[in-house]
C-alpha cells in the first residue's frame, strides 16, 4: 500500500483547486434541471471546457488533458469540495462517451467527442420506455429499414429522460429486428432531437424541477453513414445521427454503457466525502448550540465512516483498473453502496434539522435527488440479483 500522491499529482491537485476557487460561481447556480438554470449551467460547462477541465481524462485532441485515473479522482474530489455546479453534460460524458470510445468509428469519435466536451452537443439517454424500466430488454421502440434513403426510420416513446427537454441529442436502443426477442435484435442509435418527427415533452420530477422528459419518435429518419454523405445542409443535419456499433448489437454496446453508469465513473467518492464534510459541519454547528444528541451524532459518525469506506473501496478499484484488472460485477457493489450511502447522509442531515427539515433547502433537495439513486441505472433490486448471481455465484433459478 502506498497512500501518497506523487509530486505531479499534488501539482495537478493544486492547479485544480486554484482554478476552481477562482471560478466556481457564487452564489450557486439555480438547478440545472430547470430551463433557466440549465442555461447558466451551460455557460459553466463552456468555461470548464475552455480551461480544459471538462473531461480531464480524455485525450487532448478531444478537449481533455490525458489525465490518469488517479488525477481524475483528484479532480472530482476538488470539484465537489469546491461546491462546483452539477454537470448537466454528465449523461453524455459519463454514459455515452465510454461507448463511443469503445465502439465508435474514428469519424464518430472525431465528430462527437469534441462537440460533447465543449457542450456543443448535449446528450440525454433514451433507455427507459413506459413498459421497459428495470427490464431494459423489453424495449419496443422500433427502427425500420429504409433502403431507398439508406438509413432507418424510428418510431416509439422514451421516458424518464433526464434533462431531455434541454438537450440536443438522444442515445438509446431501438428494435431493428422485430422477430428477435428480448435483448437480441436491438440497435444503439444516436438521434438529433431536432430531427423531423421528434417531439419532446418535459415533465416534473420529485423535487418539482422539470428534470424529466418524454421523447416521442414518429418515423424519424436516421442515416446509416452520415459522414460519407455530400457536404450539403441536409447531410450536415444527418451527420448528427447514426448507429453506434453494429446493427442488432445494441445490447452489447448498451451494457458497456450500463456498466460504466453503475461503476466507477458515475459516482466519484469525492462527491460523498464532500457531502459527509458538510454533514459534519452541520452537526458541529448544532453541537455548538447544544442541540446535538449522542444518537444523532452517531448517525453522523456512521455516515461519515461509510463515506470513508466508499472512498477507500474506490481506491482499490482504481488500483485494479490501473493495473489491468476489470472490476466486473463488483461495480454492482459500488452502485448499491453509494446510492444507499447518499440517502443515509441526507437523512442524517434532515434528522439534525428536525422540524426545519421540510423546508426548501439544499439538504431536502439533496435528499430528493439521493432517493433516485437506488432506482436509476438499474434498481438496487436488480443490482442485488447481479451481486448474488455473478459475484457470489448463487443459482439464477
Amino acid at each position, binding site marked *: 500500500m502506498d497512500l501518497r500522491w506523487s509530486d505531479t499529482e499534488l501539482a495537478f491537485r493544486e492547479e485544480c483547486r486554484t482554478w476552481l476557487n477562482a471560478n466556481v460561481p457564487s452564489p450557486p447556480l439555480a438547478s440545472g434541471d430547470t430551463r433557466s438554470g440549465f442555461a447558466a449551467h451551460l455557460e459553466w460547462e463552456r468555461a470548464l471546457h475552455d480551461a480544459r477541465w471538462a473531461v480531464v481524462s480524455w485525450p487532448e485532441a478531444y478537449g481533455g488533458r490525458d489525465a490518469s485515473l488517479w488525477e481524475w479522482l483528484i479532480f472530482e474530489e476538488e470539484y465537489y469540495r469546491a461546491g462546483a455546479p452539477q454537470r448537466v453534460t454528465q449523461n453524455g460524458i459519463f454514459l455515452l462517451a465510454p461507448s463511443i470510445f469503445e465502439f465508435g468509428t474514428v469519424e464518430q469519435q472525431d465528430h462527437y467527442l469534441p462537440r460533447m466536451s465543449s457542450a456543443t452537443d448535449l446528450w440525454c439517454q433514451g433507455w427507459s420506455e413506459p413498459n421497459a*424500466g*428495470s427490464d431494459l430488454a423489453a424495449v419496443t421502440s422500433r427502427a425500420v429499414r429504409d433502403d431507398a434513403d439508406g438509413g432507418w426510420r424510428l418510431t416509439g416513446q422514451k421516458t424518464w429522460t433526464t434533462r431531455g427537454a434541454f438537450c440536443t441529442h438522444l442515445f438509446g436502443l431501438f428494435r431493428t429486428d422485430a422477430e428477435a426477442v428480448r435483448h437480441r435484435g436491438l440497435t444503439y442509435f444516436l438521434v438529433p432531437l431536432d430531427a423531423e418527427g421528434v417531439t419532446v415533452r418535459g415533465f416534473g420530477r420529485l423535487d*418539482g424541477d422539470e428534470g424529466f422528459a418524454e421523447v416521442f419518435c414518429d418515423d424519424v429518419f436516421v442515416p446509416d453513414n452520415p459522414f460519407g454523405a455530400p457536404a450539403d445542409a441536409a447531410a450536415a443535419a444527418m451527420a448528427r445521427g447514426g448507429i453506434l456499433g453494429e446493427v442488432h448489437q445494441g445490447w452489447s454496446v448498451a451494457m458497456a454503457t450500463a456498466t460504466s453508469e453503475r461503476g466507477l465513473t458515475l459516482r466519484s467518492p469525492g462527491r460523498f466525502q464532500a457531502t459527509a464534510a458538510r454533514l459534519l459541519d452541520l452537526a458541529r454547528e448544532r453541537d455548538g448550540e447544544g442541540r446535538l444528541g*449522542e444518537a444523532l451524532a452517531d448517525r453522523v459518525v456512521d455516515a461519515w465512516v461509510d463515506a470513508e469506506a466508499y472512498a477507500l473501496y474506490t481506491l482499490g478499484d482504481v488500483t485494479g483498473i490501473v493495473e489491468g484488472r476489470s472490476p466486473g460485477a463488483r461495480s454492482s457493489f459500488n452502485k448499491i453502496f453509494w446510492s444507499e450511502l447518499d440517502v443515509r447522509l441526507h437523512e442524517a442531515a434532515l434528522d439534525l434539522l428536525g422540524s426545519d*427539515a*421540510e423546508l426548501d433547502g439544499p439538504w431536502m433537495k439533496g435528499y430528493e435527488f439521493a432517493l433516485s439513486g437506488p*432506482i436509476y441505472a438499474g434498481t438496487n433490486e436488480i443490482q442485488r440479483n447481479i451481486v448474488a448471481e455473478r459475484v457470489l455465484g448463487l443459482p439464477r433459478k
Partner: protein
Amino acid sequence: MRFELTDEQVDLRDAVRGLLEDRCPPDAVRAAWDGDGRVRAAWDALVEMGVLGALVPESAGGLGMTDEDVVPLLVECGRVALPDPVAASGYASAVALGALLDDLTGGGLAADWSGRIASGAVLLPVVDAGAPLAGATTADGFLWCVADEVVLATPEDVDLQPQRSVDGARQPATVVRRSGEVVATGDLARRVGSAAAERLAVGAAAELVGLGERMLEMTVAYVGERQQFGVPVGSFQAVKHQLADAAIAVAFAMPLVWLAAHSLAHSDPDAGRHVAAAKLRASTAARHAAAVSLQCHGAIGYTVEYDLHLFMKRAWALSYEHGDPDACRSRLRAELGLAGNSR
C-alpha cells in the same frame, strides 16, 4: 377489556372515509399546492358533519366527543392527505380550549372560539414558537401557548414569514406575535399548552398512520399491475418482502396511536410516554412505508405527475413535526428513567 373501535366509532369513521374519498381526491390535494393549501370542499363537508366540533363541548355548539372518537377520523384525513388543519384546530385547539372554559379570565373567549371552531374557523395552536407553522396564512387565529402563557391572537396580532415546504400543500410560515389577548398564565397555561402539544403529536401520528396505509395500498395496486420481465413486479420476492415489512410497521404503529388517544381521554398518568411512543412509531412506520413505496414504484414514483409524492412529502414533513423521532426517544428515555448521558 376491549381494544377495538365501537360500532358507532366505526360507522363515523366509514362515513368520514366516504366523504373524504369523494371530496379530497389526489387532484384536490394537487390543486391545494397551487392554491392556498386548503381543500374547502372537504373542509366544509367535515364542518357540516360536525367533525370540527366533535371535541367542542355541547354547550359551546360541539358534539362533546373524546380523543378516542376523533383520532380514527384523523387517520382518514391522513389517508387522503387532506392538508386542512383538522388535527390542529378541531382536535388540538378544541381540547386545549376545553381546559379554559371554566376559567374566569379566558373562559368567555374560549367559549367563543370553541363555537367558531365547530363552525369551521381555524385556530392554530403554537407550542414551539421557532418551528414553521403549516397553514398559518389561512388561519383565523392562533392559540399561542409559549412560556407559560396562553394568548389568543388574531391574524392582525402576528407577523407571518411564509416558508417553502417540500410539501406544497402545507404552506408553512414562521410566526412572530406582536399582540393578542392573554387568557391564561401559570399552571393553567401549562395545562392548556400541554393539552395542545399532546394532541398535536397524536394528531400527526394518526395522519402518519393513514398516510402509511394509503401509500402501501397505492403501491400494492401498482406492483400488481406493472409488468417487467414478463410478470407483475409484485410477484418478485424482493418487492413482496419490502412491502410486507412496511405493512407490519404500519400495522403495529396503529395500536400505539389508539392507546395514546385512550390515555389522553382518560387522563392516564402514563399518557406522556404513550404519546411519545405513538408519534415515534407512526413517524418511523410512515417513513418506512414512503421509502418502500417509492422504491417499489421505480421511476414513476419519482415524478410529480404521479400521485405518490403528494403522500410521501406529507409523511416526511409530519414525521418531523410535533416531535421528531429523536425528540420522542428523548422523552421516552426520561419517562423510563434512563438518563443516558454517560459517555
